[in-house]
């Protein structure tokens, strides 16, 4: 295998020094001359008809410059796909969830804007609420979304392989139900943006956006303006986790208020608004039936799943497909039948959260697998090793696995957690749980799906890189700089990260699904090769060589095999600039054209390359008196292909795991019977702290993906998918209580213990 000089090294993040000194400017830190402050009035009802909004008193308050409602927008719905355009910038006829923005104010300062909100009078007619999947599907249920005549937002049904035969061949069949709660996304930076409109009507939006070009496209559609009329620039973004893809009322209101007033408008939410009214993860009700041979080999799987997803579809249709699709992997399942529904409700809107709905699917299947192992007396590690997908595997639904390091991941995780030793001498109240998972390196979606990178060569020899992918904390900028340096044969410090700006950056489909390293990484290599080709053509004649013989390494440009026959990189760059008058730039784009556009309804197709794998082992301690769970230690055997930056990769793996430990144990967005959120502050909504998170260890399992840049796979989200079942299984291992309804609270554990002891 080739040795790399920059790739594979834990180089310092490009933004580390900026962030650690407080010089990173996030959307809420921005100001502009003449800037106004915006505030949003929120619905006290989860479902109600808007009869009238009287803004006259608010408009009359000195210092108030404009007040808007949903009627100030063109009324054009937008959505992820053409068949699910079911949301408006702000509501016009009715409110759909507690805290939905119904009006917005721009004023000279925040206090005046707040005061103006109190002067807006909204008359509502309260409507019955739809809170659960059961409510949504009940005959005669009130309709939630005014653009749809059903509460079923989307459905995904598929059957692959011979399911009937698979269950017939099974030695043992087990069926269980699982459920999960509403959780918030939980980034620390609240939604914020600064909107400006120039005298030609062109908009500049600087927001806390994870996928600025998704926001941009949706906004231009809903505002009924061409794409060229809006420029979107990303400042630093304080975490995304899939909660900042779409435009929100924050963005729409700031833009509309700026259009009306002709002045810059900034809106920064307080975190209670985020917890009450913005993106959460769907609640799940699932049923799984699994058939296995005597040795534990899976023969068939049947699954049903309903996701309760709030009043708009968002990315939900993809979620409902993903849940079923990723039941096909990481275990070998020859036959699978799946029925999934996404339903509307009057709870907060959902997008998805870190790991997407693979998180929920994996909680179900790995919990069920553990139960099968217990019933049949099969060792949990062996059970997973028997079923682990190998390299060159084709899943029942057509997903192709080129390279799998899953067996090694399982082996490493079990070794490092001390599984075998723990079986010899079991400690009271202590247990170890396992779960595996696979996460793809960015799916191919409909519409624009490619990635592009541009490398601008400066006359001092340094190179500015810009790419459609956006840095939201995950470290993608650093990774692209490493890849560009490696391919150009330059030191890491020679590559300078440019800003994400729709006027200058080439567009990307979005920052989701572990796609950046893989897709934009390949585009980075292509751009570097393009730049090298141009430079080679310029220097080759003076070296009496052909351009294709020119190589780039160690800041040198030389004839292949003869390092002395060449010149310094800087000399070559100056040749381009000063002899040829050619300020060069390299461009590259990449898209996985050989994979399928998956039909979300039928589940057919191979939607991805670069499946990464993980095996997670978590040691837990359960207090039988209080029902409290303590996470002691977590080990992740992680196959992300060639790690580009191992330390950053570890941070991603640990972070996803800690995030989902909150989902497993502590976090739940609670609603009352009228659909009002009860715990919309961090006092009452408990995200894991440093004292809740265990000690983490990551074991890198190096593989080489044939399509990935330098053999890398997408990375980071797999640990989100494997953590919840590992905790649930660890709790069972510790005290023999199986909890199938998330979150696993002390109350549920104590109840389980009581029932167990009563037997």
């Amino acid at each position, binding site marked *: 295998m080739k040795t790399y000089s920059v790739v594979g090294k*834990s180089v*310092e*993040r490009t*933004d*580390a*020094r*900026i*962030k*650690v*000194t*407080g*010089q*990173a*400017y*996030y959307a*809420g*830190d921005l100001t502009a001359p003449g800037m106004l402050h915006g505030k949003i009035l929120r619905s006290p009802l989860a479902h109600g008809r808007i009869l009238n909004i009287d803004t006259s008193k608010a408009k009359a308050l000195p210092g108030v410059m404009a007040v808007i409602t949903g009627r100030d927008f063109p009324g054009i719905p937008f959505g992820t796909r053409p068949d699910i355009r079911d949301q408006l910038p702000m509501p016009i006829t009715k409110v759909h969830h507690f805290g939905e923005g119904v009006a917005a104010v721009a004023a000279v300062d925040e206090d005046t804007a707040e005061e103006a909100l109190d002067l807006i009078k909204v008359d509502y007619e309260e409507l019955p609420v739809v809170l659960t999947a059961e409510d949504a599907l009940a005959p005669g249920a009130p309709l939630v979304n005014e653009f749809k005549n059903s509460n079923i937002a989307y459905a995904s049904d598929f059957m692959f392989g011979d399911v009937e035969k698979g269950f017939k061949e099974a030695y043992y069949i087990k069926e269980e139900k699982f459920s999960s709660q509403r959780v918030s996304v*939980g*980034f*620390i*930076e*609240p939604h914020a943006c600064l909107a400006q409109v120039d005298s030609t009507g062109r908009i500049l939006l600087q927001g806390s956006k994870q996928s600025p070009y998704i926001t941009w496209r949706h906004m231009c559609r809903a505002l009924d303006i061409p794409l060229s009329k809006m420029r979107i620039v990303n400042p*630093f*973004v*304080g*975490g995304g*986790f899939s909660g900042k893809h779409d435009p929100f009322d924050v963005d729409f209101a700031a833009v509309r208020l700026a259009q009306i007033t002709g002045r810059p408008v900034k809106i*920064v939410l*307080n*975190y*209670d608004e985020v917890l009450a009214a913005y993106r959460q993860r769907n609640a799940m009700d699932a049923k799984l039936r699994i058939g296995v041979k005597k040795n534990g080999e899976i023969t068939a799987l049947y699954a049903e799943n309903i996701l309760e997803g709030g009043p708009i579809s968002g990315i939900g249709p993809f979620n409902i497909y993903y849940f079923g699709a990723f039941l096909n992997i990481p275990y070998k399942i020859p036959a699978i039948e799946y029925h999934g529904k996404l339903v509307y409700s009057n709870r907060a809107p959902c997008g998805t959260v870190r790991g997407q709905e693979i998180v929920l699917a994996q909680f179900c299947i790995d919990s069920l697998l553990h139960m099968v192992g217990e019933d049949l007396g099969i060792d949990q590690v062996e059970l997973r090793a028997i079923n682990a997908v190998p390299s060159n595997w084709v899943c029942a639904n057509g997903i192709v696995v080129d390279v799998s390091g899953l067996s090694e991941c399982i082996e490493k995780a079990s070794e490092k957690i001390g599984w075998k030793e723990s079986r010899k001498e079991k400690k009271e109240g202590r247990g170890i749980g396992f779960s595996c998972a696979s996460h793809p390196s960015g799916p191919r979606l409909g519409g624009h799906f490619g990635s592009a990178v541009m490398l601008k060569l400066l006359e001092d020899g340094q190179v500015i890189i810009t790419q459609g992918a956006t840095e*939201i*904390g*995950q*470290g993608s900028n650093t990774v692209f700089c490493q890849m560009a340096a490696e391919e150009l044969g330059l030191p890491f410090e020679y590559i300078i990260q440019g800003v994400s700006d729709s006027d200058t950056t080439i567009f990307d489909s979005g920052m989701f699904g572990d796609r950046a390293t893989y897709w934009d990484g390949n585009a980075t290599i292509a751009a570097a090769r393009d730049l090298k080709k141009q430079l080679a053509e310029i220097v080759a004649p003076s070296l009496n060589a052909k351009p294709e013989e020119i190589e780039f390494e160690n800041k040198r440009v030389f004839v292949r095999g003869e390092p002395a026959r060449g010149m310094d990189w800087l000399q070559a760059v100056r040749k381009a600039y000063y002899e040829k008058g050619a300020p060069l730039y390299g461009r590259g784009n990449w898209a996985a054209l050989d994979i399928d556009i998956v039909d979300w309804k039928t589940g057919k197709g191979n939607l991805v390359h670069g499946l990464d794998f993980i095996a997670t082992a978590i040691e837990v301690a359960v207090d039988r008196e209080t029902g409290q769970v303590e996470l002691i230690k977590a080990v992740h055997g992680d196959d992300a292909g060639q790690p580009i930056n191992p*330390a*950053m990769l*570890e*941070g*991603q*793996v*640990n*972070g*996803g*795991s*800690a*995030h989902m430990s909150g989902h497993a144990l502590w976090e739940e967005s609670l609603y009352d019977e009228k659909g009002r959120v009860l715990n919309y*502050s*961090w*006092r009452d909504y408990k*995200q894991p*702290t*440093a*004292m809740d*998170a265990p*000690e*983490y260890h990551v074991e890198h399992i190096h593989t080489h993906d044939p399509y990935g840049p330098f053999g890398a796979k997408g990375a980071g989200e797999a640990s989100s998918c494997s953590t919840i079942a590992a905790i649930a299984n660890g709790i069972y291992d510790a005290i023999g209580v199986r909890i199938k309804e998330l979150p696993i609270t002390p109350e549920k554990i104590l109840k389980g213990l009581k029932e167990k002891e009563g037997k």
Partner: protein
Amino acid sequence: MKQDITLKVNGIEYHLSIEPQRTLVEVLRDTLGLTGTKKSCNEGECGACTVLMDDKPVASCLVLAVSAQGKEITTIEGLAKDTKLHPVQEAFVKKTAIQCGFCTPGMVMVAKAFLAENPKPTPAQVRKAISGNLCRCTGYQQIVDAIMAAAEANT
């Protein structure tokens, strides 16, 4: 009614005229432009707005600016000397303890104050010390590692 106050921030005295209900985080960010101190929950739960007041960490969203008079206030902008980072900052960089960076200033301030009083901590003590600062990105492991490394570098 505005009130005249004097605030000493990062060694510099500022004479300001502010409304008495203004919190320290508001004055630092909006009046002095020191936006390195972050604001998120505004109720002392997330720790993003942590600054030092006479070397003690406080949630600056819970402190009225008027009550910060006569104290030495240190923000993230006051730690590095020219381009030389404070050892805690250096450790955060070296140990890859930073991802999105939004919690970073608050974490660094808490860590600095904690290490001043506990120069040889255990990882468990470090975890307790930063338990008032939420981070969603990292899982905390590399932050704990960074603070332990800063402690070791000091001994």
